[in-house]
């Protein structure tokens, strides 16, 4: 296929794959900047697995709810439970996240083993998200989730920034630091849950981490970091999908691979010219 044919096919046959990938790329890259800043990168990996577990639960015969609702419900419930533990000092953050991660994966494996309603391979496909077959329904649901997250960050920019940067002083000035942390994690949980259902855990976790880290290597301006990360969220899915068609490889790894290549380039650039970075 020629490049023109590939692009034409993408736009005409798989428009929601293209728009959906870009949407998730932007949403995850934007949220990822804050998650990396809070040093809770592993939270992204954990919530994608919790979301996948929520999806799996909906295959149990006695839980007759839509897949998306299952994923969303499990993720938000987990966020409510762990947000207090994440801000506490009794148990280290990474230990809390590690426990939730391993519990989610274990529970999913056990449930899949006992699920007889459909083929396990088919479930796995749905659980991991299939970029090429993104439906308009899930796309618009994700778009709604992203708009809610973006508006919340616009309205509560000051609160999120202050509480993330210096929670003690924010509390001394009268902010309910724990509540604001919870609001942030709920928004992150919602976006991660919807995105995981739509494009799979690899894509989501990859874009929560790789674009923000790339941007941190390239600039020392907070606004520019957000702008660069979001730009990677737009560009990498387009190039990745194009390469997936061209080389006949799976879309999700191709897209994350493009983002990783960008990260490697940024690292080389920053190493070669540390004063510019």
């Amino acid at each position, binding site marked *: 296929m020629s490049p023109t044919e590939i692009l034409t096919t993408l736009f005409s046959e798989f428009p929601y794959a293209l728009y959906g990938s870009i949407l998730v790329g932007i949403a995850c890259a934007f949220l990822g900047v804050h998650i990396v800043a809070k040093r809770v990168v592993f939270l992204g990996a954990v919530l994608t697995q919790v979301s996948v577990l929520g999806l799996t639960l909906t295959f149990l015969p006695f839980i007759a709810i839509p897949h998306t609702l299952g994923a969303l419900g499990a993720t938000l419930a987990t966020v409510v439970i762990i947000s207090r533990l994440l801000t506490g000092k009794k148990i280290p953050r990474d230990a809390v996240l590690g426990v939730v991660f391993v519990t989610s994966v274990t529970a999913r494996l056990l449930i899949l083993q006992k699920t007889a309603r459909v083929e396990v391979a088919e479930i796995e496909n749905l659980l991991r998200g299939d970029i090429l077959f993104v439906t308009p329904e899930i796309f618009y649901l994700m778009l709604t989730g992203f708009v809610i997250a973006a508006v919340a960050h616009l309205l*509560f*920019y000051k609160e999120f920034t*202050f509480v993330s*940067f*210096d929670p*003690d*002083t924010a509390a001394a000035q009268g902010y309910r630091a724990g509540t604001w942390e919870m609001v942030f994690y709920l928004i992150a949980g919602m976006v991660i849950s919807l995105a995981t259902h739509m494009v799979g855990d690899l894509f989501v976790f990859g874009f929560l981490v790789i674009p923000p880290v790339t941007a941190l290597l390239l600039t020392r301006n907070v606004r520019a970091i957000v702008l660069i990360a979001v730009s990677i969220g737009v560009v990498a899915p387009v190039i990745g999908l194009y390469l997936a068609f061209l080389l006949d490889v799976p879309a999700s790894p191709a897209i994350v691979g493009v983002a990783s290549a960008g990260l490697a380039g940024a690292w080389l650039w920053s190493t070669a010219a540390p004063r510019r970075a």
Partner: protein
Amino acid sequence: MSPTLIHLDRVTLGYGQKVILRDITVTIRQGEYFGLVGPNGAGKTTLLKAMLGILKPSGGTRTATHPEGRPLRFGYVPQRDSIDSVLPYTSSAVVMMGRFRQMGLFRLPGRADTAATLRALAHVGVEDLGAKVFRDLSGGQKQRVLIARALASDPDILILDEPTNGMDLTSRTAMLELIDGLHRRERLTIIMVSHLLDDVANHVEQIAIVEKDFFRVGDVREILTPAHLSALYGMPVKVDSLHGHYVVTVGGAHESN
């Protein structure tokens, strides 16, 4: 007598079931320069959090009201090492955070907030650091920026947690002079917390000594006695005066300076 800003009445403080301090009564009055001193882990930060209202007492009462009847505005300066930002915020952006509470919800910083930020930076002598990345600054510079952030909030009380910790003699002296100046020139109410007795004793007017099962509060001259300090450190302590400065000798050696 100046009006009371904060009053803790027989409070018990701790976390969960663990009691850190018991039966503490302390009053902070408007215009006072108050020192909170004690060894590391004695409960200074716990008491500070209770004064700020972050930690609710499990017993006793806390009142904190401005004489005009409104809630107090606290300008809190945390230990600078407690801030370890991944994102490269500029010093101006950090100081601007001090304005956030006054802006309220949904409002973005305006010209008045920018002007207040610049004024606060100039107030502590670091107006040239506004565009610099906060995490790249030296310890002393960071401390000044954090004080500027506290001042930008137009506080009723400035609260400093270990402001001279880890500083060399020059930076430490300059920092204490800066804090003294804020108190003397503007009659700003200040609470300074330190484990360094010399820092507190030679600058504040009122002092509280905090240690497990030991709490004394009052005028510096009344509290800084060999009997009190010997009880605090659990060994003989001498208190002398040299050129108008207190010199504390613990166990035969001069207390760390």
